[in-house]
Every structure is written in structure tokens, then in C-alpha cells.
């Protein structure tokens, strides 16, 4: 028997759960837009972020803020290292897209195996208890976790939008995404833009893994499945449209949550793979609402000044 309260509860919980999917999707879509890289290494970065925080909280026993800072710093450092030492080398060699694909995917797997060696294959959460205090609002159970997840995801997304829209460095990212060689002619460093994009992505990845790790158990191969979600949402949202991809992540998350009404939970993941086929078959260029014009990156790119010209 399905009633309104049940539907509303699934909607609320589904929206809250999709928060970390949104963060992973934004990270993936941003790197794809700016760097032009299908960054499958993101799964590895997600693993590093989670286990760095796990180590901080459960081995070092440091306060939450310090553990978070440790996780963010470690992930950003590692991501930067990969960008500077590996991806730049491959770009310098003009490596094929096949090489980039192999590198990013295998790096992810390498990290997963290393994490298995150090932390085992048993599911672990960031804190011993993942129970969160719950209050009832209009017959709907609202947990503290839901509020933290939604507010932090909203704040981070808004901050990114403001950064890309109004900050000079953010506008550089858009310029490089639109036309790298032309942007470089105007004095914008593509290398720097790539590094900034990867750094921002690692912040989103780390925040997402914190939310996920305080809600569910993680094994070293979990990030790969989580990343697949981000890939599907990026495709559905349309390559190059970061916030449309984030919206797509919420839609897919909600569909997955509502699927519990019609299919057994063991088959719930299949909804995701169904979405993948559906997206590639029906919306290979992403879903667009008719009449909506995308703000072109060129409009956001900094206008050439007398000095740069």
C-alpha cells in the first residue's frame, strides 16, 4: 500500500542520498569539461579520500575537523601529484586517448589493490556508528545527516558556480574548456587551469566520500561503482554542462530510490545500468529541455585586454 507519506519519505531520503552522487558527478564533469579527460582515476582519488579520513578518525583518533582537513589535504596533494607527474607527461608525449584511458583506469585499480592490502576487504565506515539523530517533520523522518548532506552539497555547488561565473580563475577554466589554444594565446595557462580543475574536483570527491562514509560501508572497490554513477549522470546531463549533470545525478538518485517500490533491493543497482543503456541509446548528447539555451563558455571567458592583446 503506497501512501503520500511513504512517497514523500522516499523523495526526501532519495534527495538527501543523491547529495554525494551530485558531488562525485560535479567532480567528474568538471574535469571532463576543463581537462577533456574521462578521469577514471577519480575512483582511485575517492578511495584515497575515504581511507585517509578513515585512518585519521580511527587510527590517529583526531577530531572531526582535523580528520577532514587531513583527508582533503591528502587527496588534493595526491591528485596534484598525478596531474603534475603523470598526466602532464602523457600530454607532453601527445599520448593517444587510449593511453589516457588505460592510465586512469589502471591507476584506479592500483589504488584499490593497495587499499585492499592495507585496509582489507571488509566494509568499513568512517565512524563506528552511522546512526544519525532523527526528527519528524510533517510525518517525514529527517535525520541530521540529511541536513548536513544537503546543506554542504548545496553550499559547495553554489561556491563552484560563483567561482566559475565571477572569479577570474574560474573564468579561465571556462576559457580553457572552450578553446585551450586560444586561451593560451590570451596568456591563460592551460596547465594551471588543469591543476585548478583537478584540485576543485578532489575537494568535491573528498566531501562526497565523507558523506558516503558516514552513511554506508565502503570497500576498496566501492568507488568504482560510485564513479559509474557520476559517468552516467555526466552523460545524461550533457558533456560540458556541469550543473545539468548534477541535476541528472539527483534525478537518477531519485529513480533509484523509488525503484524500491517495484523491484527488490538486490536488483536496485541494475536500474543504474539500465539508465546507462537508455542514456546512450536515447540521449547520447545529454538531455536538453527544448527552448533552453546553454550559456556559452565564450560568453563567460574574459574579454581580451589591451595588455593581453
Amino acid at each position, binding site marked *: 500500500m503506497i501512501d503520500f507519506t511513504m512517497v514523500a519519505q522516499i523523495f526526501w531520503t532519495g534527495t538527501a542520498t543523491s547529495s554525494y552522487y551530485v558531488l562525485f558527478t560535479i567532480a567528474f564533469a568538471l574535469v571532463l569539461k576543463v581537462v577533456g579527460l574521462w578521469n577514471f582515476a577519480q575512483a582511485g582519488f575517492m578511495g584515497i579520500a575515504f581511507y585517509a579520513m578513515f585512518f585519521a578518525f580511527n587510527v590517529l583518533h583526531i577530531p572531526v575537523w582535523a580528520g577532514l582537513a587531513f583527508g582533503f589535504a591528502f587527496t588534493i596533494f595526491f591528485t596534484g601529484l598525478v596531474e603534475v607527474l603523470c598526466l602532464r607527461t602523457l600530454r607532453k608525449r601527445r599520448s593517444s586517448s587510449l593511453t589516457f*584511458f588505460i592510465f586512469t583506469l589502471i591507476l584506479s585499480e592500483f589504488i584499490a589493490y593497495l587499499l585492499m592490502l592495507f585496509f582489507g576487504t571488509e566494509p568499513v565506515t568512517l565512524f563506528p556508528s552511522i546512526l544519525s539523530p532523527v526528527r519528524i517533520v510533517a510525518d517525514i523522518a529527517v535525520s541530521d545527516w540529511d541536513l548536513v548532506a544537503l546543506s554542504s552539497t548545496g553550499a559547495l555547488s553554489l561556491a563552484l558556480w560563483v567561482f566559475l561565473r565571477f572569479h577570474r580563475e574560474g573564468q579561465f577554466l571556462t576559457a580553457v574548456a572552450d578553446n585551450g589554444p586560444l586561451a593560451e594565446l590570451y596568456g591563460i595557462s592551460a596547465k594551471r587551469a588543469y591543476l585548478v580543475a583537478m584540485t576543485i574536483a578532489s575537494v568535491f570527491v573528498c566531501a562526497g566520500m565523507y558523506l558516503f562514509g558516514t552513511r554506508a560501508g565502503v570497500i576498496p572497490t566501492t568507488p568504482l561503482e560510485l564513479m559509474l554513477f557520476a559517468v552516467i549522470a555526466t552523460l545524461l546531463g550533457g558533456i560540458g554542462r556541469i550543473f545539468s549533470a548534477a541535476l541528472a545525478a539527483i534525478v537518477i538518485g531519485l529513480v533509484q530510490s523509488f525503484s524500491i517500490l517495484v523491484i527488490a533491493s538486490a536488483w536496485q*543497482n541494475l536500474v543504474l*545500468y539500465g539508465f546507462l543503456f537508455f542514456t*546512450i541509446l536515447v540521449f547520447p548528447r545529454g538531455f536538453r529541455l527544448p527552448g533552453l539555451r546553454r550559456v556559452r563558455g565564450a560568453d563567460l571567458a574574459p574579454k581580451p585586454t589591451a595588455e593581453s592583446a
Partner: protein
Amino acid sequence: MQYVYSLLVLIGIYVTLSASFNLIIGNGGLISIAHPIFFALGAYTAALLGIHFNVPVLVSIVAGMLVALGSSFALSLPSLRISGDYLLIISIGFQLGFLQVIKNIDFTGGAGGLGNIPSVLSGETRDIVFASGSLLMALGVVLLIRWIVRSPYGRAITAMRDDELAFVTLGRNAMKIKLVIFALGSGFAGLAGGVYAYYFLYLSPDQFEILQSATILTMVVVGGMGSTLGPVVGGVLLLALPQAITFLQLPPNVMGPLQGVIYTLLVLIFLFVRPQGLISAARRQT
């Protein structure tokens, strides 16, 4: 002695897998990681036909190959219709999705695995037959791929991989070639799967996870992508390497990840130090 025979069977199977994967990724330039799922399809089809319908072994193995070959279209048709890049993404979903199905239905034994596969022959004869059969299969597949690659059709494959736009402009059908390469490679993986099922008599979904993708990719990259002999060398080398680790007698929960670390680290090292692999494709062609 049985240990040596098992190793020979595995060498035959993995050389078949790496050579067929090389046809797809090295010769065809098609990026997919779902090769293990076609290996699984062949293995499960052959095993289920043997268990439930008492189909003769050779017929079951051929049926497994055909199922893998046919299923490849479900993956390649929707993705290649749009762009080659989509093949990679859809292949990840295809592999994980199919494994999810295998794990959740009783017919395939579920997550616990599929046993009771009828054993053909017994004793040392069984080992000798399977070892020689497996090596012959590998030899046949490698020679067939070599013949394809060196034929006019193979030159068309290379031309398509190197410059698809020019290839299409000349009036050739790139899509058709991609579908054929992908189907052939997947069919060979299915064939190897059938042999695997009837030799080891037990199948588990875990054997066809992403680790397998990494293993096969490592064999191709380390051996030399695009060269016929490369995956053979890569396959033999990377099967021999873990045998050295087994002598360390590490617990299984360390062995598995350690093998994974070695495989993936090798790929990363080769990507930067010797991207052409042990056997360069260009050198072979001269």
C-alpha cells in the same frame, strides 16, 4: 605434475584471452574493459548446457563461444552507433550489470558459484587432453588473428584505427569492421570460457570481476599492444610471475591484492617507461 598441467591450461586460456583482447583494443583501437564478461558468458553457457541438458562438451564450448559472440552486439551496437568513446563507458556498465544478474539468479548458482559441472575424462589423461587442447586453442586463435591482421582485411582494420575519417571518406564501412572485430574477439573469449568451465568444474562471478579486466589488459600492454606475438609473451610472463609469489605462502587475503598491485603497477611502469610493450608492433611489421 598436475600443477604443471593446470598452469599449461591457464596459459592456453589466457593467451587466447589476451590475443583476442588485443584484436579489439590493439588492432581495432576499440576501448572496452568488458572482455571478462564474454569469458564468463562462454563459461556459464557451456557449464549450464552440460549440467542441465547433458550437451556434449565440444558442442557446449562452441555454444558458449556463439553466445559470447552474439552478446557482443548488445554492447557494441548501441555504443559504436554513436562514438567509440561510449564503448568504454557502456562496457563498464555491461560488465558490472551482467555480474549483478549472475549473482542474483539461482540458475547460475548465484554469488556462491556454479558447481556440479560434468567432468569429462579422469586422471592424468584428463590433464594431458585439456593442457594440449588449451594450448592448441591458443595457437589456433593466435594464428587466425595473425592471418586476419596480415590479410587485406587486416590492413583495412589498421587503416580504420589510424584514421577513421579518411577510411570512411574512401567509402569503407568502419562500423561494420568494428562490429566484426568486437564480435570475433568476444567469441574467442567465450571459447576460452568454455574450456575454463570444463577444466576447473567450478565458476564464481568473482572470477570475472574488474581484476580480470586488469589482468588481461596488463598482458596486452606489457606484451605489446597491436603486435600478434606481444599478448602471447605477456600472457605467459604474467602467468608465470604470480607462481613465484605463491612460494611465499602468503594468506589468500594478501595474495589476491598483491597480485593486483603487481599487475597494475607493471602496466603503469610500462605506460611510462616502455609504452610499446616488450614486443613493439612497428618492429614486427618491418
